[in-house]
């Protein structure tokens, strides 16, 4: 009806549909699937460079992965009191997580149903009422519409009144032990099924204090001009450490040779993890369904870790095996956007892809609530040293991502060779180390100092392909 009255509009719509079709027709599901060359029987796993630098792939990733399934939103401790809120993004969509007056957390699209304006514009806050700054529609902390300005005088139709005016709720929202997840589609498995056995690795984080975990005040954001999956891989990459971070390693050695009170002790000072000639099992990797992976290293219950003050208490409450695992180096990825790195210190990272060649990282120091002031200070100093974009390690990673991104332009030799280490060492199911905390991964690798498994990336790309080819979650 409307279009008939306005032929130009009809024409524009047709063109829009046509252009959409053209975009989709250029990159088919078969094309996407072909970017992952996974032939386990032949010992082949390769990734095509286009997976990292093609804008159509990126658009499809946003729809199928970030806006089409579970993503990490934040910690419940970011909104501790009634009417507290924090904001984040799910894919490209602004989201608000609020705690209502009864203490219930919920997640909403941070967009006024009236004209689409963002409602909450700050990272965090406390608001009984969100008043849209554009036309003053207002909503309470449970997302209910409380006022439409000059409603009676507005001469709305009856159809308008039949419509709901509350904030749009995220179709799926879950709180796993204070880790909050949301999805823009309801077609997701239960969060327990999605996390699977990897949830036990979140437990190792959550259980470090009886009161749970918190983010140390002060978040650090940085960008890099490279694809988000480079961050996904780097967290799990044992192979790069001695190559990308020799300056950091040498500085730790210099501190150990001449200790003083001015410099920060390192968790690695008594550890063979980065020593190339270390003997025996030094760690390994675990992979889980849905693309979650852990890269880990033996650390020992050392007083160089701020957690040491709780070592006995943690053993009493959780048993020695779990306590020892809390002290191990652990780099955990919960696909697709959460990483918790407990190595030089403890970092929670949220990956926010901006385009095929650009990514924003939102990072925090995550810490057990109630630790002593001295432990907290030590944790913060260790964190700044290693993790910050102003520190002595992360810039050597992110500059390398950007070098990779430049190299991905090549289609002369499109297949990357970075997925082969550990092909002969990966076994189905777990091992003695996962057994010790009753965890059952899908695959595991036990590694010496130089094995540096790359098969754990296979989990990322198998889940990636499953999701990109439209598999039901």
């Amino acid at each position: 009806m409307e279009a008939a009255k306005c032929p130009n509009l009809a024409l524009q719509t047709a063109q829009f549909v046509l252009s959409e079709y053209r975009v989709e027709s250029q990159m088919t599901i078969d094309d996407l699937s072909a970017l992952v060359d996974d032939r386990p029987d032949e010992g082949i796993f390769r990734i095509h460079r286009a997976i990292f630098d093609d804008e159509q792939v990126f658009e499809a990733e946003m729809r199928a992965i970030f806006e089409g399934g579970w993503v990490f939103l934040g910690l419940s401790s970011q909104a501790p009191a009634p009417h507290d809120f924090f904001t984040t993004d799910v894919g490209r969509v602004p989201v608000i997580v609020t705690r209502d007056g009864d203490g219930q957390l919920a997640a909403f699209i941070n967009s006024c149903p009236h004209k689409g304006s963002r409602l909450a514009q700050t990272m965090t806050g406390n608001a009984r009422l969100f008043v849209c700054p554009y036309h003053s529609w207002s909503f309470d902390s449970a997302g209910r519409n409380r006022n439409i300005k000059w409603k009676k005088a507005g001469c709305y139709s009856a159809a308008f009144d039949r419509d709901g005016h509350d904030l749009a709720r995220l179709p799926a929202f879950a709180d796993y032990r204070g880790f909050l997840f949301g999805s823009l589609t309801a077609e997701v498995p239960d969060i327990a099924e999605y996390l699977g056995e990897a949830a036990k690795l979140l437990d190792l984080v959550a259980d470090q204090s009886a009161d749970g975990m918190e983010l140390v005040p002060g978040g650090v954001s940085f960008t890099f001009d490279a694809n988000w999956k480079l961050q996904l891989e780097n967290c799990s990459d044992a192979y790069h450490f001695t190559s990308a971070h020799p300056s950091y390693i040498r500085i730790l050695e210099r501190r150990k040779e001449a200790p003083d009170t001015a410099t920060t002790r390192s968790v690695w000072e008594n550890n063979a993890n980065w020593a190339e000639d270390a003997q025996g099992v030094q760690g390994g990797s675990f992979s889980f369904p849905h693309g979650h992976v852990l890269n880990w290293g033996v650390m020992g219950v050392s007083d160089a870790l701020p957690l040491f003050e709780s070592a006995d208490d943690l053993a009493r409450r959780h048993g020695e095996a779990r306590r020892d695992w809390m002290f191990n180096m652990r780099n955990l990825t919960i696909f697709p956007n959460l990483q918790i790195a407990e190595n030089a210190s403890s970092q929670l990272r949220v990956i926010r892809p901006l385009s095929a060649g650009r990514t924003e990282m939102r990072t925090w120091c995550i810490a057990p609530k109630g630790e002593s002031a001295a432990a907290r200070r030590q944790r913060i100093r260790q964190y700044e040293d290693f993790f910050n974009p102003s520190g002595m390690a992360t810039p050597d990673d992110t500059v390398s991502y950007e070098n990779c991104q430049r190299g991905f332009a090549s289609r002369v030799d499109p297949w990357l060779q970075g997925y082969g280490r550990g092909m002969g060492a990966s076994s189905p199911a777990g091992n003695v180390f996962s057994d010790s905390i009753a965890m059952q991964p899908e695959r595991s690798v036990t590694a010496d100092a130089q094995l540096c498994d790359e098969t754990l990336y296979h989990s990322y790309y198998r889940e990636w392909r499953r999701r990109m080819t439209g598999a039901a979650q």
Partner: protein
Amino acid sequence: MTPAEAEQLLYREALALDRRDWDGWLALYAEDCVFWMPAWRDETTPTQDPDSELSLIYYHGRRNLEERVWRIRSGQSVASTPLPRTVHAVTNVLVERTEGDRAFLSASFTVHRHDRRAEKDHVFFGRYEVETVRQGENWRIAMKKILLLNDVIPTVIDIYAI
């Protein structure tokens, strides 16, 4: 400390960094100096207690700055090899107060960075709060707080770009 002396000290530091005169830069700092760049709690409030809140950089002791210089010189940090080109512009220098051998300064800064390798330009900007101490004939930096205002960091920020 006279306004001219304050300007000379801050300009000298800026020039040392831009010229890559690392030893000259380190010599401007007292041995037990504090070198501090806070992070931000939110849109409007920088972190204030480095022991309980995160900073971008917090060092107590010149040895830490020596380590940073060692890393830059080492050739073992890909982020630092080759170094981007920088120029500091330090303005609005004010001696806020003087107490005996100590003076408290504030100033504004911009640092223009050209990274030829990455083919990128960026400008970092913010304010300095500096405590100086007279040691013999010279004023040295006892505490430097760098309040970086544009704190979403493009890839890397180091001591030469703030």
